[in-house]
């Protein structure tokens, strides 16, 4: 029996394809805006419901926010009168003149006004370091690392605390405040917690019982205690036991507290990453003759940290917001300066507090969202480099 070319005879038991099926474009409902809507927002009844709820929420919240922050906002004035309800202004939104006037305080705290350029220089140097290190295509990133981890900390310390010998008037850390303190505390926590966390995580998996026990005790103890307690112990109880002149500066104590706390959390995050690495990677590394530290540095940690990036950044974001707790030991971080400013009688109005908190919210949102976005970009880039 013969068959016409390309004709699929269903009854036929044997079949040989004689013509090639050319690819055709997908149906219109799968592509374009309609396709996108269908696939992303309306794919199941549950998604349809979710989409409706979210649209309603946005419809309610966004106009309110825009109204408060922009439309009803007061843009000029010199004291509280500008931001009070009056005949011309029936409803009052954000009180921006208050923020504008207190902005230097929010940024520098009580850092002496003639010396504030030093803070500006510090922030600029930090920004350069961060960009150099985080921009993956930047030139000479090895130099960038030296700059960030060696030069920057030393230079910043001298610049901010002062050194009379080179004409930099000493500034007591009691005077520091606002964004300066928030950035200093967060940077120290972020930079110190990763290496210490890695060491603790390796210690916890070590074959040496003493190392392992010490690591476990440290991690579990610090994780079992609230950050407020750690700060309180570092800030208030330490001076009771240590003689006055030996006891370090209040800010330094808080920095140590934050670093200890963040390191313990980071240790657990890194340990989770280490656990994701198959035994074969260790064996492969040992079989080619790598020593323990070489194996960790070249083979295990690069892979473990890569799968851990989302959790590391998550910890960093938590840490960044936790820095607000340093107020408990009398340190004026950004949130604390806003707290102080909002009860200033000169600006006492019904909207002052809300405005102040909005500024804090925007500040933290920008930084935390920035970290989150960077992590996503990095993940995507690393995922591309070894698609398995």
């Amino acid at each position: 029996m013969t068959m016409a070319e390309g004709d699929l005879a269903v009854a036929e038991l044997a079949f040989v394809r004689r013509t090639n099926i050319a690819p055709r474009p997908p149906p219109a409902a799968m592509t374009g805006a309609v396709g996108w809507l269908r696939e992303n927002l309306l794919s199941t009844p549950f998604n349809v419901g979710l989409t409706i709820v979210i649209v309603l929420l946005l419809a309610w919240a966004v106009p309110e926010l825009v109204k408060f922050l922009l439309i009803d906002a007061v843009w000029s004035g010199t004291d509280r009168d500008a931001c009070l309800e009056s005949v011309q202004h029936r409803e009052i939104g954000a009180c921006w003149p208050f923020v504008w006037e207190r902005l230097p305080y929010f940024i520098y705290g009580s850092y002496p006004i003639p010396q504030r350029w030093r803070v500006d220089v510090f922030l600029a140097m930090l920004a350069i370091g961060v960009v150099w290190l985080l921009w993956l295509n930047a030139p000479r990133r090895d130099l960038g690392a030296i700059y960030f981890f060696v030069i920057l900390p030393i230079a910043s310390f001298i610049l901010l605390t002062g050194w009379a010998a080179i004409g930099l008037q000493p500034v007591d850390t009691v005077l520091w405040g606002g964004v300066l303190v928030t950035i200093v505390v967060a940077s120290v926590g972020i930079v110190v917690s990763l290496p210490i966390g890695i060491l603790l995580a390796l210690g916890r998996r070590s074959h040496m019982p003493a190392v392992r026990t010490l690591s476990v005790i440290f991690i579990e103890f610090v994780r079992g205690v609230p950050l407020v307690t750690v700060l309180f112990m570092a800030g208030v109880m330490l001076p009771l036991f240590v003689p006055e002149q030996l006891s370090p500066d209040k800010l330094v104590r808080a920095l140590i507290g934050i670093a200890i706390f963040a390191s313990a959390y980071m240790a657990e995050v890194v340990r989770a990453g280490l656990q994701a690495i198959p035994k074969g990677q260790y064996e492969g590394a040992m079989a080619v003759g790598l020593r323990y530290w070489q194996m960790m540095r070249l083979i295990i940690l690069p892979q473990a940290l890569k799968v851990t990036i989302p959790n590391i950044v998550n910890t960093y974001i938590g840490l960044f917001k936790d820095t607000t707790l340093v107020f408990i030991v009398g340190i004026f971080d950004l949130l604390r300066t806003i707290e102080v400013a909002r009860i200033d009688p000169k600006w006492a109005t019904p909207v002052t507090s809300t405005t102040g908190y909005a500024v804090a919210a925007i500040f933290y949102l920008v930084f935390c969202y920035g970290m989150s976005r960077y992590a996503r970009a990095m993940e995507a880039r690393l995922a591309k480099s070894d698609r398995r």
Partner: protein
Amino acid sequence: MSVAGNHGPLLKPAKLNTATAVEIADMNKWYGDFHVLRDINLKVMGGERIVICGPSGSGKSTMIRCINRLEEHQSGRIFVDGVELTADLKKIDEVRREVGMVFQHFNLFPHLTVMDNCTLALIWVRKMPKKQAEEVALHYLERVKIPEQANKYPGQLSGGQQQRVAIARALCMNPKIMLFDEPTSALDPEMVKEVLDTMVELAHDGMTMLVVTHEMGFARQVASRIVFMDEGQIVEANVPEEFFAHPQHERTKLFLSQILR
């Protein structure tokens, strides 16, 4: 399954270079209470090719992993190229520099390119300059016939290609002894041959090899001796012709009847 016999004459007798490459004497190993290796005695001369076979769980992997101290033995002695393996880290490093290993699941480093996989140990263990290391790596990648893949990542290669990279990676260190732990059993059938061919060539070049495998065609063609293990013991060891033609032990006969259908 068998390897096509198109590799010229069979390799025998082995070109022995009199020196003992590996000597295992009265070696025992336990996992907790489980006596996994019992009174192992095995002497491998330089240039010999030992194929180790036996049922699953018989301790084949454990035994060859003791040779580069991926596993620790509890009694008896192991000498590798004259160096005794003890807890001494220096000795372990020394042995690992002389012994290359190829694993069932390749164990390539997925975050490094093929080239970097090969040069890593040269640079960090042999302290070779990067440029020179790359020349060495390229030489061995050519030898396993995949120089064109040098800049890819392991995840972009087929299983057979990955295993050949793993062989090249081990060869780069210029080892005196190569250990293979079921190098083809994770591969799709069509890739087995390319890996076995590479190993046959290695055997032709006189490499001392200990190979755990169930590829009896390969064993017949290449092995200078076949070692059969069961329940943590060496049950029988013989030259291939005798081993296949006249197995002595009941368990060997049973094993062969199951594996050679």
